[in-house]
C-alpha cells in the first residue's frame, strides 16, 4: 500500500484548503502507518527530480518528498506546499511519479501502488518530440498497467476555470480520460475545496466479501456472485479511556483503564453472581422466562446459506424510503465471463423494463435470520468495469408501523397554500438548485467529507502541538456542508425573499410558556410530559377545547373553564383531587410568576373564585382554606403595597375562608371566616 501524491501547485485556493486541513495526512498516519508516501509538485519555479539529472527535461517538477513511510513530516510537508509560479506539465509530473514507484519497488513487491494527481488541468501539455500526445499518454498508461500502478485524477474545476482556455480544458479532459481506457484509472471532477476533501479519500479499506456463492435464479440456474459492502458508516473513532492516577514519575505507566463488571442480584446488591452463573431471561407478559443458550440453539431458526431469487417486481412497487440498512453490491465472480454476462444481461433487462429483483439472502452458514432485499441494476459507464447490482434490505411486516396521518386535502383552508404561495414554492424548488447539470452536482455524497471526522482529525493534529487548544469553529469549507452556500443564496435572493414574504409563520401565542421556550432552544424531542401533549394528531387538538369531558390539563387561555370541566369529569373519582391540585398549582404559578401585575391579578382572582366554588360543591373546604392561608403567608413576604392590594382584592370579591355554613365539613365558623379578610395582617 504505497502511494504517490502529485500536486499541481497552481491550484492555490485548493492547496490552501489542504494546508488548513491536515486531516488527510493525520488519517494516513493513524490508519495506514505502513504506507509509504511521496510528494511531487509541478509548476514550481525550481526543478528537482532524478529524471532531470539523469536524462534532462522534466523542468518545473519538484520532488518534495521521496517515497518513505508516513511520519510527522508528511503533515508538515503538506502544510509547506509552496505556491507555484509557472505553468506545469502534468504528464511530466506523472512520469516522474511512475519513475519513483518503479525504481523504489521491485517487481516482486506485493503492495498496491497508487498515483493520485490533483490538477486544474488548465495548462496545455507540451508537444512530445515524437508521436502525438495521445501516443504519449498510451505509453504511460501501458507502463502503469504493466507495473500494477493504479491512477486517480482529481480535476479541480468550478469558478477557477472560468477564465481558462476552453480548448485546453477539452484537450486535457480527453487525455486524462484516455488513461481510464488503457489503465486502471479513475478521473473525478470536483467543483470546490469541500469536494476535494471528500474526493481525497485517505482511509482505504480493502474490500472484503461478505458472501461468495450462488445467486439462485431457480434450482436449475445459478449465477456465481461475490457480495461486498457498498456503504458502511465510518463511525467516530472509539477513543480509549485514559487514567491519570499513575504518578507522573512513573515512566512505564500504561494509563490504561480496565472495565470491570459485577453482576448483582437486584433484590440484594450484596449478592454477586459469577458471569457463568447468569442465564438469559426473555420477557413473556409480566414474567421473565429463563432460557439457556443451549436450549435456544436447539430450536432456533437456522436457515441454509444462500441467495435465492423470489421474483421480479415493478420498480415503482419498491419505494426508496423502504431501504433500511447500508447497501451491498453484487458482482459476478471474477474469472468466469459467463457469470459476468448473466449479471450484465439481467441488469440491463431490469433497467430496460424498469424492474427490480426480490431476493432472500442468508450470507453466512449459521446466521440466525434471513434478509429479504431488492436488487437494482448498476449499469457501468466505464468500459473496463462490469455491470453489477446494488442490494438494499427491505423491512418485514413486523418492522412497519401503520400510523395514520390526515390527508392534506382534509386540512382547513387556512392550511392550504393559495396560488401565490404555491407559485413561490414552485420557484424555490426549481431555482435553489444544487444540481444544475449532471457534472455540477454540489454536495454529492461521494465527494462530501464527514465534517465531524474532518474536525476531529484537524483538532487532533492541533492538540498534538498545543495540548490546551480549544476546539476551533467549523471553517468555511466545512460550513458548505452544514449551511446553505451564501453564493447560491445571494443568487436566489429574489426567490427566497418572495417565499419568505408569501408565508406568514409565527409562534403560537396560545402555547404554554414552557413549550415556547423549548421551541426557542429547539431542544427537540423530550420528556414524557411533553409527549403526552404532542401525541394527539392535529385534528384531535382542534376539537379538544370544545370537548369538556376530556380536559385533563388547566391551560393558560381558559383556566376557569378547564378547571370546571375537569372537576366535573365522572369517568374517575380521581379527577376532583387532580383538578383541585392543578388549579392550586396554576394559581401559585400566576401569583409567583410575576410580582402581582394587573393581568395576572384578575386571572388569579378568577381562578381562586372558581376553586372556592368547586371546593364548596365537592365538599372539600379544607383544601381551599389551607391553600388560601398558604397563599397569604407566602405573599406576606413580598412587597407590602402589592400585598395589601391583593388582600383588598380578595376581600372585595368575598374570597374568604369557606365557613361551616357553606360546607358542613369546614372547621371554620362563619364569623371567623367573615373576620379573616377584614384585618390586614401586619408586616413582620
Amino acid at each position, binding site marked *: 500500500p504505497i502511494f504517490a501524491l502529485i500536486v499541481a501547485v497552481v491550484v492555490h485556493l485548493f492547496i490552501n484548503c489542504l494546508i488548513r486541513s491536515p486531516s488527510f495526512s493525520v488519517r494516513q498516519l493513524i490508519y495506514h502507518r505502513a504506507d509509504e508516501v511521496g510528494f511531487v509538485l509541478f509548476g514550481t519555479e525550481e526543478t528537482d527530480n532524478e529524471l532531470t539529472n539523469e536524462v534532462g527535461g522534466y523542468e518545473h517538477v519538484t520532488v518534495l518528498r521521496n517515497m518513505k513511510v508516513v511520519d510527522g513530516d508528511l503533515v508538515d510537508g503538506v502544510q509547506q506546499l509552496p505556491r507555484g509560479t509557472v505553468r506545469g506539465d502534468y504528464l511530466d509530473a506523472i512520469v516522474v511519479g511512475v519513475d519513483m514507484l518503479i525504481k523504489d519497488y521491485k517487481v516482486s513487491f506485493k503492495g498496491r501502488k497508487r498515483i493520485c494527481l490533483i490538477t486544474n488541468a488548465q495548462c496545455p501539455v507540451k508537444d512530445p518530440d515524437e508521436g502525438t500526445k495521445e501516443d504519449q499518454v498510451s505509453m504511460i498508461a501501458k507502463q502503469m498497467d504493466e507495473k500494477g500502478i493504479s491512477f486517480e485524477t482529481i480535476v479541480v474545476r468550478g469558478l477557477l476555470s472560468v477564465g481558462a482556455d476552453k480548448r485546453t480544458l477539452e484537450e486535457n479532459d480527453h487525455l486524462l480520460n484516455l488513461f481510464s481506457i488503457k489503465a486502471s484509472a479513475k478521473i473525478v471532477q470536483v467543483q470546490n475545496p469541500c469536494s476535494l476533501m471528500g474526493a481525497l479519500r485517505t482511509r482505504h479499506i480493502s474490500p472484503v466479501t461478505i458472501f461468495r456463492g450462488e445467486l439462485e435464479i431457480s434450482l436449475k440456474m445459478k449465477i456465481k456472485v461475490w457480495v461486498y459492502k457498498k456503504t458502511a458508516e465510518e463511525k467516530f473513532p472509539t477513543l480509549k479511556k485514559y487514567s491519570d492516577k499513575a504518578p507522573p514519575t512513573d515512566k512505564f505507566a500504561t494509563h490504561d483503564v480496565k472495565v470491570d463488571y459485577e453482576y448483582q442480584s437486584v433484590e440484594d446488591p450484596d449478592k454477586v453472581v459469577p458471569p457463568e452463573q447468569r442465564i438469559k431471561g426473555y420477557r413473556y407478559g409480566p414474567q421473565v422466562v429463563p432460557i439457556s443458550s443451549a436450549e435456544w440453539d436447539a430450536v432456533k431458526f437456522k436457515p441454509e446459506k444462500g441467495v435465492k431469487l423470489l421474483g421480479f417486481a415493478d420498480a415503482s*412497487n419498491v419505494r426508496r424510503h423502504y431501504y433500511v*440498512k447500508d447497501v451491498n453490491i453484487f458482482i459476478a465472480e471474477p474469472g468466469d465471463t459467463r457469470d459476468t454476462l448473466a449479471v*450484465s444481461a439481467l441488469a440491463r433487462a431490469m433497467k430496460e423494463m424498469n424492474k427490480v429483483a426480490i431476493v432472500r439472502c442468508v450470507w453466512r452458514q449459521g446466521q440466525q435470520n434471513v434478509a429479504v432485499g431488492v436488487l437494482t441494476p448498476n449499469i457501468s459507464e466505464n468500459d473496463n468495469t462490469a455491470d453489477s447490482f446494488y442490494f438494499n434490505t427491505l423491512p418485514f411486516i413486523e418492522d412497519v408501523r401503520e400510523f*395514520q396521518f390526515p390527508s392534506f386535502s382534509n386540512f382547513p383552508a387556512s392550511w392550504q397554500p393559495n396560488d401565490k404561495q404555491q407559485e413561490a414554492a414552485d420557484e*424555490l424548488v426549481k431555482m435553489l438548485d444544487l444540481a444544475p447539470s449532471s457534472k455540477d452536482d454540489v454536495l454529492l455524497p*461521494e465527494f462530501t467529507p464527514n465534517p465531524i471526522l474532518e474536525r476531529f482529525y484537524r483538532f487532533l493534529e492541533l492538540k*498534538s502541538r498545543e495540548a490546551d487548544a480549544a476546539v476551533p469553529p467549523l471553517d468555511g469549507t466545512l460550513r458548505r456542508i452544514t449551511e446553505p452556500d451564501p453564493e447560491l443564496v445571494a443568487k436566489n435572493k429574489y426567490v427566497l425573499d418572495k417565499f419568505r414574504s408569501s408565508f406568514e409563520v409565527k409562534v*403560537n401565542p396560545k402555547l404554554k410558556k414552557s413549550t415556547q421556550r423549548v421551541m426557542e432552544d429547539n431542544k427537540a424531542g423530550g420528556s414524557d410530559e411533553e409527549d403526552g401533549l404532542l401525541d394527539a394528531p392535529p385534528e384531535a387538538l382542534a376539537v379538544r377545547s370544545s370537548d369538556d369531558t376530556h380536559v385533563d390539563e388547566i391551560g393558560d387561555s381558559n383556566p376557569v373553564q378547564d378547571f370546571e370541566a375537569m372537576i366535573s369529569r365522572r369517568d374517575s373519582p380521581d379527577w376532583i383531587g387532580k383538578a383541585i391540585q392543578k388549579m392550586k398549582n396554576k394559581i401559585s404559578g400566576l401569583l409567583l410568576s410575576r410580582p402581582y401585575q394587573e393581568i395576572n391579578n384578575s386571572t388569579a382572582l378568577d381562578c381562586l373564585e372558581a376553586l372556592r366554588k368547586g371546593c364548596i360543591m365537592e365538599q372539600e373546604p379544607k383544601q381551599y382554606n389551607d391553600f388560601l392561608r398558604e397563599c397569604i403567608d407566602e405573599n406576606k413576604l413580598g412587597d407590602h403595597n402589592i400585598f395589601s392590594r391583593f388582600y383588598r382584592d380578595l376581600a372585595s370579591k368575598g374570597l374568604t375562608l369557606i365557613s361551616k355554613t357553606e360546607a358542613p365539613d369546614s372547621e371554620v365558623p362563619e364569623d371567623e371566616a367573615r373576620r379573616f379578610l377584614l384585618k390586614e395582617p401586619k408586616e413582620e
Partner: protein
Amino acid sequence: MDLDPEDVFKDDEDDEDSEFFQLRDSTKEFVVYLIDASPKMFTATCPGADGENETHFHIAVTSVAQALKTHIINNTYNEVAICFFNTKEKRNSQDLSGVFVFDVAEREHLDRPTARLIKEFGCVEESFAKEIGSQYGIVSGSWENSLYNALWVAQALLRKGSTKTAEKRILLLTNEDDPFRNISGIAKADMIRTTLQRAKDAQDLGISIELLPFSRPDEEFKVSIFYADLIGLEGDDLIEYMPSAGQKLEDMKNQLRKRMFAKRIVKRIKFVITNGLSIDLHTYALIRPTAPGAITWLDSVTNRPLKAERSFICADTGALMQGPLKRYQPYKNEDVKFSEEELREIKRVSTGHLRLLGFKPLSCLKDYHNLKPSTFVFPSDKEVIGSTCAFVALHRAMIRNQRFALAFYGLSTNPRLVALVAQEEIISDGGQFEPPGMHMIFLPYSDDIRDIEQARTSQLTTKRPAHRATEDHIQKAAALMKRIYLKDFSVCQFSNPALQRHYAVLQALALDEDEMPEIHDETLPDEEGMSRPAVAKAIQEFRTSVYGEDYDEADDKPRESEASKKRKAAAECVAQEYKNYDWEELADSGKLKDLTVVELKYYLAAQKLPLAGKKEVLISRILTHLGK
C-alpha cells in the same frame, strides 16, 4: 434496564442510535372478554377447521385463548379480564348471580395476561361443567338478568385507569340474538330498557362494546333483534355487520404476532427553509427493524433478575476511577487526550435544526445513498402557525418537479446530510397505504462509500473491456423476468421467520408446551411455481443463451476458494499439534499453565471451543471441558 456488557462496550455513537431505534409500547388497552356460557353455546355447533363440528363455546374459548397469546407478545402492557355469564356459579366483586370472572393466582381480575392465565384458560373447558356450570340467567318469572349483570361486572372491572391513557373495550361473544326471548310483557320491555341503559352508561364512560356473534349453519344471528341497539348500529352498518363480524373472529385467531407501537412523535424539529423562515416538523419512526424482546439477565440458580455494575479501574494503580473519564488517541508517538466536553464540542457542528441547503432532481438520489431506515416527517401548526401551509406548498412543488430537498440535520451526536423525499398520499382498499408527508433519508458521506467497482477493476491483471450482455442475452433475460413476475408486490408482505420463530419458541417454553411449533417461512421461493413448464423453459433459454448448450452441471461444483483452503490447512495443522500433548495428564498435574497461549489454543480449536480470553480464562475453559 440491565446492562449487557456487549452493549456497554459499544461505541458512544451507538447511544444516539439506540435512541433512534427506541421503541415504546402503545397506549394501553383494557379488554374484558364476556363469554356467553348458556346451554345454547354448548349445543349449537358449526363446522370447525378439521371438518368436525365444534360447539360455539369451544370456538369462543379457543379464539380468546389465541387472542391472549397474541396479546402477551404484541402489547405486553394491555390488561385483560375473562368473564363468563349465564353460569351456575358466581364470582365477581358485586356478587351478582350468573356471572363468573375467570382468573388465576397472582393476578388482579383485570391485569396483564400471564403465562399461567393462558395455560389454565386453555383447559377451562375440561373443568367447566364442574366448577362453573352453565345455566340460563334470564328466565321467566325471575327478575334476574345475567346480561345486565355481565355488563355491570365488566364495567366495574374497567373502572381502573382513565380513558385518556387506556382504551377500554368489552368484547361480547354469544350466539343468542334474542336474550330476552323467554320473557314477555312489561317485564321484557323493562329488562331490555335497563340492559340498554347499562350498556349506554358504560359507553358514556368511554368503554366501547363490541359484539362477536356466532351463527348456526341453519340460523343466522339476527343483530337487529336486540344487539343493534346495544352496540348502536344503524343503516348500512347494520347490513354489513354480520360479514365483518365473522372476519373479526378470524382475525382474532390468526393475528400475527407483531409488537404494536402507538403513533408517537420521535422528535420535534425546526426546519429552517431560509433565514427568517422556519417551520415546525414532527418526526415519526414508520420503519424500524424489530428486534426480538430485550434480554434480562437472571441468576441461573434462583432465576432472580441481576443487574450489572460497571466500574473503571486504573490499570497502573488499581484505583477506582470516578466521573467522566478522559479519552486518548495515540498519534505521532504520543497520546493526545480529550475531555468529554471537547469530544461533544467536536460533534456539535450545527444548532440541531434541519437546515435546507437546496433541491436536486430525484435521479441524483442513487440506490446506494443509504445507511439506515428513513424517518417520516409531518408538519405541525401547534407550535408554529403557518408550518403546515408552507410544508404543503413545498411538498406539492417537489412532487411536481420530481425533486428532493437536500438538508443538513444537525443532530447533536451524529449530524448528517439528509434527502427529504416527498411522498404523495396513496389510498388503497379504503385504507391509507402511504401517508402524505416527506421521508428523510440519511445520506452517506464520502467516508462511508466504498468504490468496490473501481477496486475490483484495478485488481484485474490486464486491462480489457468488461463483458457486456448482447441484445440476445438481454432479450432472454427480459422474457425470464416476465415469467417470474411478482405482480402487486408490496414491500412488507413477508413476516420475519426468525422473529416469528422466536415468539413461538418463547411461548412454547413459557407455557411448557410439549411440541415446538413449526413456523412457515414465507421468504422461501415458490419452487413449485418456478418449475412450471413455461417458467422452466424461460430459465432454460436464458441459461443456454448465456452459458451455452454444453453448460455442464458437474462443472458447476463450487470451486474451493483460497481462503477456505487455508482454513482447512490450518485446521489440519491444529489437529496434528493437538495430538502431541497429553491433555488429561497436563490438566491433572497442573502443568497447563506452563503451556503458551498458542499451545492452549490447539486444544480449544480442536474441541471447537471459543478462543477468546486471557490465559487464565483459557485454562479454566479447558479444565471445565475436561470435566476437572
